[in-house]
């Protein structure tokens, strides 16, 4: 819910003249640009363990970050106090990056769009506010969630259910006199169970995370999560490690979007390209994957974990096509990289909190549907693997080598899913994997899980993909 401007001024004990004086102090040594990022975040959490909600708490984080740019160089400092002396000290620390005026400005500062008002579209409207609702109101949700899981499978020996929410107020001001404000909700539920069968243990987890209010804690969410948690547990017990090696991989719709995040998304973040380290640094405008493929990073999906009204530089949230018809058409930009490349920022300047300077970061990254059927893609593979559940991934930006960890999947033998597999890592090279996409199904799904990207800082993201067939990736095995 976006409040009137005065709400944020009161919260941070500032007004426009104070903001302007602070910016002037930060630019007193020179520099080309300054921005201020005020944040007030309240967190709440509840943990159910061993059948009872016996742990919970609230946390407050409050402060202001001051960034000074001198060309492409960054000075950053923050204060956890809004006392004028503390903010001034912080501004002076940030100003040390500059020792003279610099005639290179980040995007938007030469022809500023005076940022008021905020956008008409609120991408995360709230029905039931997290703040002001006592934690005790959420206890029944966790208890019902545990019951719903346990009644579905008698092999469950332990259940942990966690509810975490946060509401973040931000106020942004910069040397172009742009003023933006926003309030961002986020609710996350995670569920883990340990199953035992014939002396063997297996664990399984699932999560949901949305920029929504407490209305997300519905009975339908309980049913959905409980069903998902127990689904496939028989296969998990029966799963084996496959024989490792290079083979075709069919990636199921939804969470397989981690492929896009790791294999190409990071390499499209413009800071890596500005520094020349990304494997995609010289591929703008070039064909990088087959015809007909669109890859998008999107901040406009209402309620999505990666949705933003504004990014953390005050640039409106937007939908960015990185790949159109197989051609690399855009990196993901913050103000610095946009100025470097002479393009408009794409609204990807994000930060974990006021403690960090913004960097180009993904939001919701996905590939548009193709025309194939998922079953046909599987049927094409004589000997390969189908994967659909993941825990984490990583990429080496320079080399383009990416990996992701597969919690579960199946062997594909003669076009059919056969033996369940689990706990294997898959490794590949980003440009090669893109070029090796052999088919895209018509079943795009954006995964609703609590994905977090950890590039220097942690920010919430999401990912999605239709079922795709890649002709060769290296699969770990015995």
């Amino acid at each position: 819910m976006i409040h009137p401007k005065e709400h944020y001024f009161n919260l941070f004990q500032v007004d426009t003249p104070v903001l302007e004086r602070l910016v002037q102090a930060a630019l007193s040594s020179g520099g080309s640009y300054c921005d201020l990022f005020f944040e007030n975040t309240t967190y709440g959490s509840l943990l159910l363990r061993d059948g009872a909600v016996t742990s919970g708490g609230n946390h407050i984080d409050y402060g202001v970050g001051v960034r000074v740019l001198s060309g492409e160089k960054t000075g950053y400092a923050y204060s956890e106090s809004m006392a004028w002396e503390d903010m001034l000290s912080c501004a002076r620390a940030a100003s040390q990056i500059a020792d003279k005026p610099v005639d290179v400005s980040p995007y938007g500062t030469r022809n500023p769009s005076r940022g008021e008002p905020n956008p008409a579209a609120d991408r995360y409207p709230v029905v039931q506010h997290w703040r002001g609702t006592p934690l005790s109101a959420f206890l029944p949700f966790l208890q019902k969630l545990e019951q719903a899981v346990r009644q579905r499978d008698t092999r469950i020996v332990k259940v942990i259910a966690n509810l975490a929410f946060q509401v973040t107020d931000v106020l942004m001001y910069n040397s172009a006199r742009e003023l933006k404000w926003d309030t961002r909700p986020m609710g996350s539920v995670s569920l883990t169970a340990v199953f035992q069968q014939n002396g063997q243990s297996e664990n399984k987890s699932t999560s949901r995370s949305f920029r929504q209010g407490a209305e997300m804690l519905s009975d339908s969410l309980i049913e959905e999560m409980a069903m998902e948690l127990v689904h496939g547990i028989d296969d998990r017990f029966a799963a084996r490690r496959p024989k490792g090696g290079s083979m075709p991989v069919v990636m199921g719709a939804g969470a397989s979007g981690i492929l896009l995040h790791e294999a190409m998304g990071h390499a499209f973040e413009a800071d890596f390209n500005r520094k020349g380290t990304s494997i995609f640094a010289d591929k703008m405008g070039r064909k990088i994957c087959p015809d007909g493929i669109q890859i998008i990073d999107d901040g406009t999906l209402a309620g999505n974990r990666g949705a933003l009204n504004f990014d953390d530089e005050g640039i409106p949230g937007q939908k960015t096509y990185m790949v159109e018809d197989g051609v690399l058409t855009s990196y993901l930009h913050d103000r610095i990289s946009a100025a470097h490349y002479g393009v408009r920022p794409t609204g990807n300047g994000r930060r974990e909190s006021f403690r960090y300077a913004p960097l180009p970061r993904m939001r919701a990254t996905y590939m548009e549907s193709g025309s194939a059927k998922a079953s046909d893609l599987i049927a094409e593979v004589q000997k390969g693997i189908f994967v659909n559940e993941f825990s984490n991934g990583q990429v080496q930006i320079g080399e383009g080598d990416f990996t992701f960890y597969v919690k579960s999947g199946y062997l594909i033998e003669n076009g059919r899913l056969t033996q369940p597999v689990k706990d294997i890592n898959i490794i590949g090279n980003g440009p090669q994997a893109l070029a090796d996409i052999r088919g895209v199904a018509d079943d795009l799904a954006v995964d609703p899980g609590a994905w977090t990207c950890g590039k220097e800082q942690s920010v919430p993201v999401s990912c999605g993909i239709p079922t795709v067939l890649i002709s060769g990736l290296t699969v770990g095995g015995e």
Partner: protein
Amino acid sequence: MSSNKIAAILTQAEIDLAQHCLTFAQEEGAQKVRITLSKSLMNLIGLLNGEVDKTAHALDRSLQLQLFVDGRYGAFSTNKLEKEGLETFIREAIDTVKMLQADTCRDLPAPERVAKDARTGRELGLFDPAYDQLTAEGRRELALASCHFKASSAHSGDSRGISLLAEEGEYSDSVFDTLTIDSQGLYARHTETSFEIGYETTVEDARGNHFSSYWWDAAPLLQDLRWKECAAIAYKRAMEQVGPQEIEGGKYTVVVDTECASKLLTPVLNALGGFSLQQKNSFLVDSLGKQLFPEKLTILDLPRAAGETGSRLFDSEGVATREMSIVDKGVVKTYFLNTYMAAKMEMEPTIEDAIRVKVLPTGGHKTLEDLLKAAGDCILITGFNGGNSNPATGNFSYGIEGFLVKDGKKVHPVRELLITGNFLQLWGKLLATADDARPCLSKLIPSLAFTNVDISA
């Protein structure tokens, strides 16, 4: 100038405020309370290709509050440290705890278990008294002096057509001061400084392939920071990555460089943690006292070594640390149980986590080179790329990079490989260790050699 001028050092007024919060919470209805007050200061200089690219200055503070109210428990924190606001925060926190379900296992540690020798925070000698003499200009000079960009640029462009793409570096120094007090008389303080430097270098071969590597160092005292050679080592390591060749998958002897060896031990330590054990989400359930590892493996916790990175006199509950065996000649000797987990498992509490782990060398091999000679033909793992493990089964699969080794000598780099197995089985195939753990690491794990490991390529 006195070190009291450092903004991250807790002032007496702030300590008094924490004491006030402790008393106030009890007055408002909490039977037991623990408070941790922390401050930290960090200065950072980032470098790109021999020039300052960014600076950062960070001053943090927080007050964490753990409340035990009517048999219920809650954890709270805030960085708003004004007295009136804190009182409101505490009052609301107590109301919140009262809404939770009761848990009789929650309690403060017994007074006889907590540290009584951490009064000043300086007992371990981890605070550099020279810290307050650092200036912005001095930091900048040190950071710039650590660059190797010009020398690396001059060296690149060799006959193989390799060029230097980027040299990114970061110098940072920090002060951390924390005080933990509780309503049973605990008063434990830890103060340390830390100096770190790290470089990542990326080079490009004639075909446009990129190769990168890094090097870093850290020390509690500036005089011990090995900053001069850091960038040059990162460049050398990046150059060594050029020209990887494919190898066949199969069973290999592997040697894991000390720099990344913790990847294979940390999941074992996690599996001995009370949280995993109590939830039966551990492959080491019911392992206490059992010989699950080879006799040549002994793992110690040495948390009280003065002046050493990672040393601590107490854990987050204030419980006094002590030297102890984690694994002794292959036998599991301890679980990591805090007060809560011990009560839930009806066992004696120990310490909540391993603090400063040391894997004892198996003897006979001092350096990585010695170990490679002993291994003969093998794969040297110098880095992991992603992957994970299953805590319930101990199965793992990680991406790796490194070198193919013949007769103890590196032949060529390898990458895009995967190592897959099970931790218990892997450690059962431990061949030997070197004795080369770097002192800047808080986990002192030397280079490790294992036989008969599955590698996918």
